[in-house]
């Protein structure tokens, strides 16, 4: 009984197979002959339509406009057909670079796709369809780092100052201990958060080993580990109170803290590192010592103890050194980070630096007032001066805490120096097959017009000289059909294409069609991410 059904079923299966295998072919015989606006054209006002001229009648299947901010707008234009298609565009198009991705079918049923790039007013690199970062992770990472810096300065700092300079008197002793234990927890926690953030993950990813491995692999990995060691040494040294052994432990903790922060972060990554890393090191040492002195000093002054005077007098003699270190290293780092282009100073990084400088100016003002006005009177035993100084120190601590919140925010704003470097950094790719290898360089590797250079070698790294090389760029995930770009051979052996417009950040596919001889063509391809 089933036998009569088998033939139709087989036929159906065959039909499906044929449709599946045959249908998606991009058969390239309907040829785009012209377009208005022309490819990569710059127009003053938004055109009402993009006109495409073909060598034969075609019907429009789909069309999508990708706007400069990365939005995909499907274009409804049913029944559009003929040798010339005028694809209507939405009204009120803004300035910037747009891509019209289209797919047409020619009379015999074969779809052909392409993408046309045009710019209204200005050429832009569109905003990315970049990874959406979980705001909770960003906030937590920021909070964790601010807190970590806080316990480093006021926990470890106080312990170091107390042990080395104040015979173990740290004011709020339990608080200082608690802060250092907090540091032991916060350092690894911030490492995990760093990993999640680096992977563009979400909150639950914090428990995945991959996040931690990634965090460890960043420059922050060692920073977190060394900071933990610093906190551990600080706790032990502080526990021993005073004396030589405790001083060595606390001093080592201080040096480790400086080393830890000099290992990572924007500033340490800047060139010349022979200058920036020591600068960060001394910057951190100075800040930890200054901030660390505040709690023990305030404790001693508030309790009205007799040794308060001695402590204050020693502090006022000692403090110019750390402050000097902070100022000199701070100026060095600021100059390196801001770069020479003054216009780039108006940036997130610049604003944070400005806010930090304003707050620091107030802190320095308070410190100067303490030093020049209050210290003398307090040393003479003036109680009101001592109380005023206690309040002033409290204000300094509060202001420093604000500065820490700001500094932790630097994590999210690359300095102008780094932005300029990132902008100039080309994408380099190596495509490797047994027969043929290609080195590709895409410059400047940001949305907008790019130059692509290709160097070809055979499997034994010997140069090959093909007849021609064509480049196809597409963004399959975003529905941008391949654009075919011819290249020309330079004297240096590179095949080059200039002005290849990659309108959006994100994932792109690049394919090379290499014509080795009249009858032999090799295709190499790879994907890359445009930042």
């Amino acid at each position, binding site marked *: 009984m089933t036998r009569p059904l088998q033939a139709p079923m087989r036929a159906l299966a065959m039909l499906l197979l044929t449709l599946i295998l045959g249908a998606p072919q991009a058969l390239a015989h309907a040829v785009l002959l012209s377009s208005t606006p022309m490819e990569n054209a710059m127009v003053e006002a938004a055109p009402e339509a993009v006109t495409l001229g073909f060598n034969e009648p075609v019907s429009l299947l789909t069309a999508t406009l990708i706007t400069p901010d990365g939005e995909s707008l499907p274009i409804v234009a049913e029944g559009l057909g003929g040798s010339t298609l005028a694809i209507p565009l939405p009204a009120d198009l803004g300035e910037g670079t747009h891509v019209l991705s289209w797919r047409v079918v020619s009379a015999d049923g074969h779809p052909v796709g392409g993408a046309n790039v045009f710019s209204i007013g200005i050429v832009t690199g569109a905003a990315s369809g970049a990874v959406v970062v979980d705001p909770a992770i960003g906030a937590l990472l920021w909070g964790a780092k601010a807190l970590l810096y806080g316990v480093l300065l006021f926990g470890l700092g106080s312990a170091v100052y107390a042990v080395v300079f104040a015979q173990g008197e740290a004011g709020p002793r339990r608080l200082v201990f608690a802060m250092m234990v907090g540091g032991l927890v916060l350092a690894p926690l911030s490492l995990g958060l760093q990993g999640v953030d680096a992977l563009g993950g979400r909150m639950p990813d914090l428990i995945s080993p991959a996040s931690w491995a990634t965090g460890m692999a960043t420059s922050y990995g060692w920073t977190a580990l060394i900071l933990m060691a610093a906190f551990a040494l600080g706790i032990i040294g502080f526990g021993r109170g005073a004396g030589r052994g405790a001083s060595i432990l606390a001093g080592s903790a201080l040096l480790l803290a400086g080393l830890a922060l000099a290992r990572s972060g924007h500033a340490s990554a800047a060139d010349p590192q022979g200058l920036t890393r020591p600068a960060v090191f001394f910057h951190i040492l100075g800040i930890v010592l200054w901030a660390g002195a505040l709690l023990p000093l305030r404790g001693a002054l508030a309790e009205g103890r007799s040794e308060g005077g001695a402590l204050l007098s020693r502090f006022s003699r000692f403090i110019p050194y750390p402050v000097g270190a902070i100022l000199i290293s701070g100026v060095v780092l600021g100059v390196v980070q801001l770069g020479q282009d003054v216009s780039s100073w108006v940036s997130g990084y610049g604003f944070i630096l400005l806010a930090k400088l304003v707050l620091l100016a107030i802190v320095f003002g308070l410190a100067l007032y303490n030093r020049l006005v209050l210290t003398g009177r307090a040393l003479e035993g003036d109680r009101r001066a001592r109380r005023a100084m206690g309040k002033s120190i409290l204000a300094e601590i509060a202001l420093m805490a604000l500065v820490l919140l700001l500094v932790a925010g630097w994590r999210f704003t690359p300095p102008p120096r780094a932005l300029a470097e990132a902008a100039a950094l080309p994408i380099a790719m190596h495509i490797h097959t047994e027969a043929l290898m290609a080195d590709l360089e895409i410059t400047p590797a940001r949305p907008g017009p790019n130059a692509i250079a290709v160097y070809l070698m055979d499997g034994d790294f010997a140069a090959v000289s093909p007849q021609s090389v064509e480049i196809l760029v597409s963004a399959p995930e975003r529905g941008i059909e391949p654009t075919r770009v011819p290249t020309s051979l330079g004297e240096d052996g590179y095949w080059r294409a200039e002005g290849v417009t990659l309108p959006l950040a994100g994932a792109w596919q690049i394919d090379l069609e290499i014509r080795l001889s*009249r*009858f032999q*063509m090799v295709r190499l391809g790879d994907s890359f991410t445009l930042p």
Partner: protein
Amino acid sequence: MIRAFCRLGLAALTLSALTVPGLAHATLEVQEARIGSGFKAVLRVPHGCGTEATNVVRIQIPEGFFAVKPMPKAGWDLETVTGSYENTYLNHGTEVTEGVVEIVWSGGNLPNEWYDEFVFRGTFADSLEPGVFYFPAIQECANGEEAWIDTSGEPGAAYPAPKVTLIEGPAGH
């Protein structure tokens, strides 16, 4: 009765689905051949280069297809490029070590709006393996070319080479 109609409808659909790709690309009319047999290849050229007329048609004869004879064509000059084979083939007891490796029809004028066919024959060596066998072909026009030389077999290939599927079979010629 209903079944018969179903079958007919499906067969028609299948047929149309199968034949459609032939219209767009330069392809061979017969898409299947037996290993060790003679084969008459008909290269179908459906269009020019964009809007330009085709003036030259070249076809490469890969290793394994020997004793090749092209069919002359009115209005076109015919020439062949010969070379030595990598292997030795037996043509009715005679050893063959060299032969046609490229056929060139030139000096013609095939407008984009017209269609034409180019014919040659030869023999598939019995040492070949079953599978796809490509005949890379190139149309040359006044200012460009259409190079049907993509032998990657990828479904999305823009310019696939004309091909024939080789199957095992009795060497019956």
